[in-house]
C-alpha cells in the first residue's frame, strides 16, 4: 500500500481543527485498511481516532447515545440496545462476522464504502473511485446493486445493516465540525449518487462523528430486521428491511420501514409511512405500503429480481413485526 503518515489523535488535537482536514480517520480499520491494500483509498496521512473518548454507550432522558468509537459488538450487546432497540441489535448481529464486529466501530460502520465489485478493482472503470471513468456495473454484474435512487453515473448501494436500523429508528448523528457540534438527522447523512458518486455522504473533510443519538421510541414490541443474502452468515444484504410498528386495536399508530441493499443510502420515505398511520395493520395495507415505498424501482439486469423480492420482504418483515414469534 501507499506509504502514509500516521498520527494518533488525542482530545487536545480536536480543538485545533484545521489539522484534521487533510487526514483520513482510522477507527477499527476493517474497511479502510482493506481499501488501502487494494489501492482504492490512497491517503497521504492517517489519524488514528481509536484513543478518543467516544466509545461510551450512555442512557439519557431522551434516549440513548452510542459513541462513534464503541464497537458494533459492544453496541449490539448493550442491555439498553437489546431491550429497548432490539431492531438495532438484530441488524448489527446480522452483519459481517463476530471477529469483524468486535473490531468495527459505529462511526466506521456509517461511513463504510460500497461493496460494488468494480469499485474494489482498480483495473476497472468506476465513477465513484475515479470520477469520469465510467460505471462498469450498469452493464456488468449488478446483482448486489441498487434499484432505487440510482443515476446514470452510479448504481452502487450502501452496504450497512446497522444503518438501516438507525434509519428506521430516526437516529441523529452528532458531528464535530471545526470545533463545533453539528447534529444531522440520519436521513441527511448519506446521499444519492446523482452526478457525484464519489461523494458517499454529506460530511465535510475533517468532520468527526462523535456519537449517534437514538430517540426514546425503540419499537421494542413490534419490530423485525429481515436480511436476505447469499449465505446464512457473513454476506452483505441483497435486500434488507428494518420494520417497526406501533399498533393499537389493530390500527397502525406508527410505522417505520427502512430498506437496505436497494439504494445508495438506507431507503425510507416518511410521507409513505404517514399515509398508513391510522390504517388497519393488514397484509393488504403492507403490500400497498411496499408498492409505494419502492415506486419507480428500476433493475439493471442481474438485479431485476430485487424488485419483486423487496416487496415481499417488506410485507414479511411487517407481518413478523406485527406477530412476534
Amino acid at each position, binding site marked *: *500500500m*501507499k*506509504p502514509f503518515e500516521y498520527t494518533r489523535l488525542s482530545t487536545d488535537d480536536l480543538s485545533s481543527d484545521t489539522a484534521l482536514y487533510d487526514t483520513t480517520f482510522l477507527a477499527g480499520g476493517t474497511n479502510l485498511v482493506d481499501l488501502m*491494500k487494494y*489501492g482504492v483509498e490512497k491517503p497521504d496521512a492517517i489519524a488514528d481516532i481509536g484513543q478518543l473518548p467516544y466509545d461510551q454507550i450512555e442512557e439519557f432522558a431522551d434516549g440513548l447515545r452510542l459513541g462513534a468509537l464503541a464497537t458494533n459488538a459492544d453496541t449490539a450487546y448493550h442491555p439498553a440496545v437489546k431491550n429497548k432497540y432490539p431492531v438495532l441489535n438484530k441488524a448489527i448481529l446480522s452483519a459481517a462476522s463476530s471477529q469483524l464486529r468486535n473490531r468495527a466501530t459505529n462511526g466506521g460502520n456509517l461511513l463504510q464504502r460500497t*461493496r460494488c*465489485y*468494480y469499485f*474494489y*478493482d*482498480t*483495473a*476497472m472503470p468506476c465513477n465513484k473511485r475515479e470520477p469520469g471513468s465510467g460505471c*462498469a456495473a450498469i*452493464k*456488468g*454484474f449488478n*446483482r*448486489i446493486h441498487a434499484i432505487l435512487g440510482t443515476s446514470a453515473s452510479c448504481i452502487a448501494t450502501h452496504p450497512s445493516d446497522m444503518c438501516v436500523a438507525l434509519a428506521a429508528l430516526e437516529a441523529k448523528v452528532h458531528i464535530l465540525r471545526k470545533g463545533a457540534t453539528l447534529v444531522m438527522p440520519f436521513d441527511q447523512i448519506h446521499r444519492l449518487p446523482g452526478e457525484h458518486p464519489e461523494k458517499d455522504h454529506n460530511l465535510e473533510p475533517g468532520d468527526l462523528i462523535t456519537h449517534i443519538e437514538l430517540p426514546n421510541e425503540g419499537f421494542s414490541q413490534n419490530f423485525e430486521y429481515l436480511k*436476505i443474502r*447469499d*449465505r*446464512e*452468515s*457473513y*454476506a*452483505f444484504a*441483497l435486500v434488507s428491511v428494518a420494520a417497526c410498528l406501533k399498533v393499537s386495536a389493530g390500527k397502525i399508530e406508527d410505522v417505520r420501514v427502512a430498506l437496505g441493499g436497494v439504494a445508495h443510502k438506507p431507503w425510507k420515505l416518511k410521507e409513505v409511512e404517514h399515509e398508513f398511520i391510522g390504517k388497519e395493520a393488514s397484509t393488504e395495507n403492507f403490500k400497498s405500503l411496499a408498492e409505494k415505498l419502492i415506486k419507480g424501482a428500476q433493475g439493471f439486469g442481474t438485479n431485476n*429480481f430485487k424488485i*419483486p*423480492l423487496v416487496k*415481499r*420482504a417488506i410485507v*414479511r418483515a411487517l407481518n413478523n413485526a406485527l406477530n412476534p*414469534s
Partner: protein
Amino acid sequence: MMLNIGNKQQRVDGPQKVSGSATYSADITSQFYHAYVLQSSIACGSITALDTSAAEAFEGVKGIFTHKNLPERLKNRVDYTDPLSPPGKPFRPFYNNKILYNGQPIALVVAETFEQARYASSLIKVTYKEEEFKGSLYENLKNASADRTPDPASNRGDFKKAFKNSEYTITQEYRQSRNYHNPMEPHATSVEYKDDGSIVVYDKIQGVGSSLKYLNGVFGLGADKVQVKSDFVGGAFGSGLRPQYQLFMATLAALELKRNVQMVMTRAQMFSFGYRPEVIHTMKLGCSKDGTLQALSHRTVGETSTFEDFNETIVDWSGLLYKCEHVNLEYELTPVQSYTPLDMRAPGGVSGVYALECAIDELAHEAGIDPLEFRRKNYVDYDQNEDKPFTSKELMACYDRCEELFGWKNKKTSSENEPHLLTGFGMATGSWEALQQPASVSLTMDENGMFTIKCATADIGTGTYTVMSQIAADKLGVPIEKIEFKLGDTAYPDSPIEGGSWTVSSVGSAVAGVCKKFQYRIADVWKRNNPDYQQVDFDAILFQDGNLEYDAKTFSFAEIMQQASKEELSIAHNEAKIEGQTTHSGYAHCCVMVEVTVDQDLGIIKVPRIVNVSAAGKIINPKTAENQLLGAMIWGLGMALREEGMVDSKYGRIMNANFAEYHIAVNADVHNIHAEFVEEKDDKVNPLGAKGVGELGIVGLASAISNAIYDATGKRLRKLPMLLDDILEV
C-alpha cells in the same frame, strides 16, 4: 496389541498445526526478499509500453522482471511442462508482450518488504493495445470441438432407436459455473539461494516431484542444484497439482538476484490461475414403462484456455453408474480467453455425475417411480464402459443404510408457524475411482527401535502423516509412537502426486510393502544369530509391540538388530500396481440424501440435513476419513448453492476474487450433517483393501440438493449455483 488400522487415530501432526509450529511454505524464516506480481488489466491484446522507472526508484526495490528483461536462456528450447500438463503449450510467464487472459502476470517486483513490492508494482505504467474479449463458454459454443478432447468411453448399442422406443424420456440441459479452489493457505514459494548457486525451494505443491520437473525444464537445474520441499500444505484441492506461477517467479528472482526470495500470492491472485471449468451438459434419457433405463446420451462442452486443452473424465460416468445398453457419450472443448482450468476435487466426476443424477431424478419422476427405487432397479454390478467386474461394490448397502438413517420414506414435516416454507427430499449416487499408482519408500531403524519412513508424497491436510504412521505401526508390529513418517522432499523416494484419492492405496501399499520386507529382515538376522531357530517358519513368528515373539519367547527388535550390519538397518521398496487394478475396475461409491427448505416467497434455500453413506473398502482411519467426507459434502453444498466465479462479459475479468463476494459455504450454512461407511471387503483393489475417500463426498451432492428443491417446489433449477433469484424467477 491394539491395532492402529481402523482406529480413530488423532492426527500425529495435530499439535504442530494447532500450535502454529507446522511450517508451511511461507513460514520459512530465512531472510527473504519479497516478490509481488503485477497482473494485466485486459483479457486480450498486447503490451505496447511498460515504464518501470518509478517502481525501480521506489524505496527497497531490488529488481523488476518483465517480458522486456526475461533472460534469453529462458526463451529457447525451454520446457515449461509439468507432469500434469494437458496437450498444448503451457503458459510461459514474461515470454513476450502478448496478453492471453485478464489477470496475467506481466511484471514481478522484488523488494525488501512485501508492502514495498506491492506498492511499487502499482507505479508501473502499462500501455496496451487492447483487443476485444470474446466472451465466456456460452458465447463461444460455436467453436466447440471434439478434436481437442480424448475420446470418451465407447458408445454402445443403438441410442437413437432405444431413445425413440422408450416409454418415458427426458431431454434437458444443465449448466455449471466456474469454481475456484480457495484453499485456506494461499500459494507460496520460498527459495533459499546457496553460495554454490544451488537452491532449496519450499513450494506449495501436491507433489514435490512436479516442482522439480518444472524447475529442471525451465531453469535447467539438475537434481544436484535444486531440492524441493513441502512439509505442510494448507489445503490444495487440486490447485497444487501443477506448479503455479509463484514457483517460477520466486525462482527466477532468486537466481537472477542471487538472493533468497519469497513470493506469497494474495487472495485475489488465487483467482488468477486454474479453476473448475464452466460446463454445459445435454442429457437425453429414456426408460421403459417399468422404469428400466433404455437409452442414455450425455454430451458435455467445457471451457479451456486458448493455449492448453484441459480435459476431464466427465461423460464416462454416465456410462458407468447404471445398467444401460444404449449409450452415447460426447465431450467437447471450447477455448476462451482465460487461464487453463485445473483439476479440482473429484475433477470431471463432480460435473458428470451432477448432470446424470439430476437427469435420473427427472426420468424417475416422469416414470412415476420413487427415485431411490429407480436407482435400485437400474443397479449394475460390472463396469459396462470397460467390460470388467468391479473389485468390489457395496453401493446397494449404502442405499439401504442411507434410506434408514435419513428416513427417506418419512413424511416431510412442515411447520405451521412458517407456512411459506416448503420442504423437500432429494438424493443422488456418488462414485469415485479407486486407483493405485506405483510408489517408492525407504525405511530406517535406529538403535532405539525408532523407525523413519520416507516418501516424496504430500499431506494436503488429508492426514497422510497420520495414516502412514498407522499402517507402518501395524505392518511392522510396533507402537505408533515408534514411527516417524517423513514426506515432501525430493531427496526422498519417488511418489505419485497426491491427487486422485490414491495416496492411501499407493503410498500406503508401499509402506505396507517395506514393513513386510523389514520383518523378513529382522527374522533373518534373528535366525542368523540364533542357530536354534534356523528352521523356523516366518509365518510362525509374531511381530508385536516392537518385539519378535516365538515359542513364548520375546526378542526386542532393537536387541536383534544390534547384530545387524549398518546396511541392514535401512531398506528401500518399490510397490507396483496390484494385478487387480488391470483385471478389475476399482471405484468407491456413496449414496447421499438431503433435506431442503425453500421459502416460496423470498426464494431462500436452506439445507437442514445431509446424510452420506459410503462404501470405500477398508477404512484405515475413520476419523480422518469422516473428516474428508464431511469437508467434501460441505463443499458440495457450496457448489450447489453458493460458488460462482463471476467473469465480466466485457472485460473477461473475475469480479469476485475475494472471500466476501466469492461465497464459499460457512458454518452457519451447515446444519445437521452426517457421514458413515458400510463394510466393504476388497482384496483386489490394492494390498490394503482401502479406497481413497478424499473426493467421493462431493460427488452427487449438488444434484441431491437440486432434486430436493424440485421435491419441495416443483421447480427444476438446471444450473449451478442455484440462487434465490432462480427460485423467484423460474
